[in-house]
């Protein structure tokens, strides 16, 4: 038996070596510079499809103390299970920017992505970025609000769709305004959409859509509002009577 030990040891070592080699990132990246702050340049809060890459890359800026871009800083991306990055780590370019393509997980909802770089002392500088994946209901809600609501609720004006936001005596709330919408329950939101602003003592400029949209459409718009809300919406969960 004893004469097999070295052979088996070699075998085990080979397997281990193979495994460890596999786990390493393909090209080792070495930071040549260090930043002191991270900022989102573009590509956060994108609305994507579950399991698919987001339409735009996520671009992160590495800045020094003066707020100038740092070239050559190592930035690493990580996220919850199912989220993948291409690349997962990269060095910042001459503008101090790092770009990665994010693929969100298979279920709908909010994905919080962790972005990390290190400063000169080796201390980690974290940044959290949110990306969104719309399931069937949220996607339906997105399409319904795009057709019926966004002309007034979306302040962004394009030549294709001129916003009516600024023309209204009482400005509507953009749908990502969590501080407003998170205080309203689903039933309240449904009531405002169905019966108009006056139903909740709000602006009469918001008309009633209860005879125009189906109940499913209204539920979908609410689901969309919950998804995009910033700060994020916390579902109240089940409330039980306590003794």
């Amino acid at each position, binding site marked *: 038996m004893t004469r097999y030990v070295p052979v088996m040891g070699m075998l085990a070592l080979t397997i281990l070596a193979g495994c460890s080699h596999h786990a390493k990132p393909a090209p080792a990246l070495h930071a040549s510079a260090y930043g002191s702050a991270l900022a989102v340049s573009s590509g956060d809060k994108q609305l994507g*499809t579950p399991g*698919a890459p987001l339409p735009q890359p996520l671009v992160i800026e590495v800045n020094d103390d003066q707020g100038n871009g740092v070239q050559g800083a190592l930035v690493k991306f990580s996220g919850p299970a199912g989220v993948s990055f291409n690349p997962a780590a990269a060095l910042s370019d001459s503008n101090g920017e790092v770009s990665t393509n994010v693929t969100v997980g298979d*279920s709908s909802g909010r994905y919080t992505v962790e972005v990390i770089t290190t400063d000169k002392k080796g201390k980690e500088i974290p940044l959290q970025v949110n990306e969104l994946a719309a399931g*069937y209901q949220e*996607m339906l809600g997105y399409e319904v609000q795009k057709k019926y609501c966004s002309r007034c609720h979306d302040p962004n004006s394009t*030549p294709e769709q001129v916003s009516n936001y600024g023309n209204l005596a009482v400005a509507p709330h953009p749908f990502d305004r969590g501080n407003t919408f998170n205080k309203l329950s689903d039933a309240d939101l449904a009531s405002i959409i169905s019966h108009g602003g006056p139903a909740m003592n709000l602006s*009469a400029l918001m008309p*009633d859509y209860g*005879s125009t949209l189906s109940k*499913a459409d209204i539920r979908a718009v609410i689901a969309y509002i919950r998804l995009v809300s910033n700060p994020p919406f916390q579902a109240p969960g089940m409330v039980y009577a306590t003794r």
Partner: protein
Amino acid sequence: MRAPEKSRFSWRALFHDPVQLFGVASFVLLMVLAIAPLKDHFSEWRRYQKQYLQMIRNRRDAVTLMRRFQPGIHQIWIPNAGVVDRCETCHLGLQQASLGDVKTEPFGKHPPIPHQLTEFGCVVCHRGQGAATTVAGAHDSTKAPNEPLLPARYMEASCGQCHHAPLMGTPILNQGRVLLAGYGCLRCHTVKLPDGSTMTATDDPPPLTHIAEKTSREWIYAWLKNPQSWSATATMPNFLLSDAEARDISAFLIADSAPMPENGASPAPAQAVQPADLPAAQVTAGQALYGESFCASCHAMQNEAGNVVGGDLAPELTGIGSKVKPEWLKSWLSDPHVYDPGTLMPHFRWTSQQLTSLMDFLESQTNSGFTANVHLDPATPEQIAHGRQLVNEYGCAECHEIRGVSKTDNFAPDLSRIGSKPLAQIVFVAGMAHTLPAYLSAKIQHPREFGPGLRMPQYTFTPAQVDALTTALLALTDRSFTMPRQWQVALPKPSNYRPAGRAGELMADLNCQTCHRINGNGGDMAPDLSAEGSSVQRQWLYHFLKDPNTIRPTLIRRMPKFNLSNRERTILTDYIMTVYQIPQVDRDSMPESGYPPALVEQGKELFYSKYDCQSCHMVNPNTDQGYVGPVLTSVGSRLNAAWIYAWLKDPQALRPGTIDPNRNMSDADARALTAFLMAQKGSGKEANQ
């Protein structure tokens, strides 16, 4: 060491004694019988059920969830759909409303969908093996590799198995189908739907019958080599032709071209002009006319800033002066139907002065670099013959009308059931994942990599477009044909409605249906005209046809001015007012004016205070700012009262899909508002604005 022991063992000794034999046999039997319950006891799904119980134990609603939990294998059985799904054996939280926050699979709640799990099961949408009770067996389908789980990013494909018309909640699938129909896929591939209909192409490839009149052989050569280098948005894909192939095909197309038919409207050949000679004033006038005629609604063109601006219904016009011959351009602008009887372009009735300035503007748009490096010797008969052979081989006639080359049926494989193509029939390229979605996606992106001699051209789709096309193809499954008939939601029957008579000829000449839908047939750029006669006043329409101006100031696409004669306007107005009526609105039931001032005042009150119409509409341009709906400053001169009344009562009944909300107005409110709106006659000037 063991050998002597074995030699001591004797079968004879064992079976010598019947009692001993019975004992051994009983023990063996017991062991065999014990395997089955043990195997069951240690099965994967029991482990998941134990984990589920542990998970719910710590939740506040544990009691309710415990009460609902039933141990054992759970099954959804839908005999007529062939569904036997045991997924809920492990996916225990799918129907538990309170588990929405659970992210640990397999216990999460199913996200909200418009269908019941018990009604359709799981595999109809997710694929996989419903009857399996192990993770690998159900998901990866080791036993039936043709039906693994559908990746989440293509999920909308499942909706498309039954829903053949666009759904609001499936934008990716809808886009995929639009691409499939709009990029020529359906001209070579057949796609039959379960209801027996066939998907039809919506693109508009030009006929090549008179191509030599339109452009040069050099341009054709350069275009064939790479259409996207001429225009990034070109619909025609790249056939990756060799220099010799492009040379011979261009030779054949020029040789095959016939002279254009003589037409009274076609002018004498224009002098070839050099861009440098063009009078600057003419070019500026032409550019203004290009804008006024709303050419940009359909055509895109690069502006001074370098941005390509305009619609995608018609070819991009950047560099058009280097593409087409001046005589052809003159003839085309005079009447496009002479060159292409089936064109979507309207016959603008430009004056000869307008025509000259527009021509000068278009010819000043040059891109001489495109053909700069193309030097072709005169074609030989062999080259022309080879060109004809290539045109046949590459299927050019599947899209284009070419003299002497006919379209063949089933030029490319039938795709009616491509979403269920067995993996055993697919030849994968080395290094790619052996799954159907990966194959379809790769095939769309790099069709020629799948073997030598393939003729499918190279497209330049974005990643999102590739995903959308893959989704649309994955919807074409076997299951979609075998599913219960009542599940199928067929496309509405396509309409080929064309107006009749003299007005019909005129509307065909103006190609009204390129932009307007009438009785189910036509484009969606402009309002549906099926109820126009019930909606507008005769005088307004007659005037509008002379001087069309938008009623929605924020729109960038508007109706062009066609320079119609009075007679033509009378024909069109008469026809539209008479034929395009709907029974819900009786035009003569309410007067156009003469409403009591008190009623008008009441309507004004309702407009501004109760219904707050000013958030979207404008009646008084000095105070109102609403820019969503049409401007109503002169609506009393445009619409008839009965239409306004019916619209206020139920807008969607008159125009399905309009975003004007139905406010559930009482008859009295609707009448007062109608009176107020009919009082908005506008000044004569405003009426024409």
